[in-house]
């Protein structure tokens, strides 16, 4: 993925790799014990410090205003070590992008001027659901003072970790839903215990129950879907980068182990049956790299059809990673299934990455709908 990146991005990429090696690898198993062990607050603080939560953020909002390629490089490196931090970076970037699409640059700038804790800087968001598909929206009632939100929003990622969330809600006016910023520390917000999930344990989610909570409208009432889909156009490729990184980590783990482990009197890497499995993993990782690099470049340069390229990458690479990480356990046999090795975690994380942005079948239907509506198929 680094064939022709600029010097600046090379530095960012190196920084992400060093960060992963230093902060994520040694304590990986312990970090993954959340919610039955403390959350790695210090890692989140350091990630904030080095700018991972502001890669694409506009400069006036305190960000680096880097293109999506930059975010993809960071996510790839981070997810090779521990995809949970990748999910945190992704969820926050998605919320920021929706606000940006809604013309909320001033809101983002306002947030940037506050204190520098990650609790204050990051935005929680239900990043595994498309509110236009499965209707997990609150209800927003308007009065003289503004909007009051009530109802349930399940699986809000980072909801129990940070102070602010971007939430979908339906108003009495237009058909569609709208987005609101909500202070999670305010009156009427009920936060569940962290929801135990398949993967991404240190990027936890909670279920929110709102009872008349003040919300700040983002953009125009009823236009939530347009902002969401536009953000998904840009950030699907970032989800693909997460999947690619996770699968690379899995391949490395499988490959290194297979050179050490002996069965039937020789290293298992010397059995051709396993070599086929390793080859499939390596080919998928290589293909994922090509897809992500091409799609991210297309998004950055807004080439014709860039939205479909980004979405196709997420669907294809997401699926490849679930297969590759399944094999990544298999190569280690029983040991692959145990927490002493990170292979089982990668399998869980990759499966969860596939669920980002909503049900894959619906994303496939959306893809073909656009072709039906006249988009070029390729």
């Amino acid at each position: 993925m680094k064939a022709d990146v600029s010097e600046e991005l090379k530095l960012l990429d190196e920084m992400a790799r060093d960060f992963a090696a230093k902060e994520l690898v040694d304590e990986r198993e312990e970090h993954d014990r959340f919610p039955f062990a403390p959350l790695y607050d210090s890692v989140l603080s350091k990630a904030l410090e080095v700018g991972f939560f502001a890669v694409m953020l506009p400069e006036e909002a305190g960000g680096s205003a880097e293109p999506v390629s930059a975010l993809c490089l960071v996510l790839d490196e981070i997810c090779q070590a521990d995809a949970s931090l990748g999910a945190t970076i992704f969820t926050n970037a998605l919320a920021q992008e929706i606000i940006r699409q809604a013309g909320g640059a001033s809101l983002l700038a306002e947030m940037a001027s506050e204190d520098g804790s990650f609790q204050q800087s990051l935005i929680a968001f239900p990043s595994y659901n498309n509110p236009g598909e499965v209707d997990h929206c609150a209800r927003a009632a308007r009065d003289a003072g503004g909007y009051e939100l009530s109802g349930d929003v399940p699986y809000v990622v980072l909801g129990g970790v940070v102070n602010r969330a971007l939430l979908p809600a339906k108003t009495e006016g237009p058909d569609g839903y709208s987005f609101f910023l909500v202070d999670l520390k305010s009156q009427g917000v009920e936060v569940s215990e962290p929801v135990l999930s398949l993967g991404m344990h240190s990027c936890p989610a909670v279920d929110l129950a709102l009872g008349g909570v003040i919300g700040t409208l983002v953009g125009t009432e009823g236009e939530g879907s347009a902002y969401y889909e536009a953000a998904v156009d840009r950030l699907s490729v970032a989800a693909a980068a997460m999947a690619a990184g996770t699968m690379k980590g899995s391949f490395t783990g499988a490959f290194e182990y297979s050179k050490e482990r002996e069965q039937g009197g020789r290293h298992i890497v010397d059995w051709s049956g396993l070599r086929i499995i390793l080859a499939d993993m390596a080919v998928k990782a290589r293909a994922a790299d090509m897809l992500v690099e091409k799609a991210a470049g297309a998004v950055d340069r807004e080439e014709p059809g860039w939205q479909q390229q980004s979405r196709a990458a997420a669907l294809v690479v997401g699926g490849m990673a679930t297969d590759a990480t399944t094999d990544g356990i298999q190569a280690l046999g029983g040991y692959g299934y145990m927490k002493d090795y990170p292979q089982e975690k990668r399998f869980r994380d990759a499966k969860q990455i596939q669920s980002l942005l909503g049900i894959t079948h619906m994303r496939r239907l959306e893809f073909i709908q656009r072709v039906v509506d006249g988009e070029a198929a390729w």
Partner: protein
Amino acid sequence: MIEGLTSSTLLEKHPRLEDIMCSLDTVGKMPSGVSGEIRQAVALARRFNESVARPYALELDRKMHEDPTYVPWDIVKEINRWGFYTNWIPKIYGGRGWNLGSLIPVVEELCSECAGIGNLMGVEYFGMSVLFAGWNTRITDKVCRDVVAGEKSGEPCLIAGLVTEPGAGTDAEETELLHKARVRCLARKVDGGYVVNGTKVFISNGHVSTWHISTAFEDTSRPADTMMCFAVRNDAKGFVYGRMEKKMGQKGCPASEIIFEDCFIPDEDVIINAEQIKKLKHSPRETAQQVIDFVVTLTRPGVGAMGAGVARGAFQEALAFARETEVRGKLLVNHEWAQCLLAEMYANAALARLTYMECNHITGLYGMAALLNLKPMYYYMKMMPTALLDRVMPFANRLAAVQQAFRKIIMDRQKEEDALRASGWASLSKFAATDLGIKNCHLAVELMGEAGIRHDMRAEKFLRDSKLLQIYEGTNQLNRLNLFKCLVAPAAPEALVFEE
């Protein structure tokens, strides 16, 4: 019509009809009582699921997430109370003597709710099959009656099977690999018994089992020719529990490390060794393979049944979700594409079931308990009052002559082609059904989107649980090779297996 002789020549061509349609032979040969037993056994498993497994499965899994050292005695006692640990112990050993053909449909049933709990029950019969496979009636009788007593007293007395070692997993289930394997579990002959040193890993039910049926080797540089098998209680001197593994799934069933430190095994607890098989037809290596095959032809379709179970469980959760979730304003179950997907999932579970049921027929006809399926024997045993057997069998089982007779009949008379068919199909079911199982779990998680990754929605647990099925009882790769060896290579004599 084709003449009889020509016809049988045609049917003998590869693939031989009797290798690919085993149920054809079974239909007439099996006692009709078996199907009634399967119905009763499955009904019991369903009642257990409704009242025990479903209400407790998530809680147990969560408990193990929080504290991986938790030993799940509560659920083990419950399974014990329901009679699952003795239902399939033959009457001659003091059990209820349910037909073995009804065991693995129950395994599917339990795993359709929770594969961890299913394994807590099912793996008891792995330990038991290692015990049975050596046809040492004296020790088998002793151990089985302990299990029965443990059911009566309410203090579970379970049996674990110890095969895998840290350096030998795939190796340990195939003599062709075993002779090059790095096994370390050494049984040194001393006066009156053996002294065993070594480590066994990933032992399902290890921490909740009293009796441990273990393999070891008299010469670790020639393991395939010197395999022996013994029974040891967990309170024996030199029997040491190591760690309980932290697993991704099937968390409710402990996987234990067991260490033998100068553990003395008296001769009377040696199930089978080179000395005991001197009078049998086969060489030590052939006998080792035969014993392994006796075990895996029972246990591999059992894992296939677990695959069918998770395939079905994942399907059921996906269907329940589709029936109550609106997507774009319409119930998911009314989206055409979702109906196609659910049909696919239903078929995956059905295909998995077909493989293990086919195996069930083969094991019934040719497996280690085939004798019990001969109609006269079947009905005789069914009618025989247990009380009467209990007065006679403990003594009969101790007689060397009885043991020798069993070994002669079952081990010496087994036809090579029957052994190959059974072993090949066991492998087929094991990898095909478990691949289908994990496939359905992937599909369920995918279909359910945000709900699919939540612990409280169950689909993600099925996915975590299912992955282990592709690994234990011989990885699916090893099982593919074994299928090749048993069912393909006979038609391709130039093929060398395990010799790349």
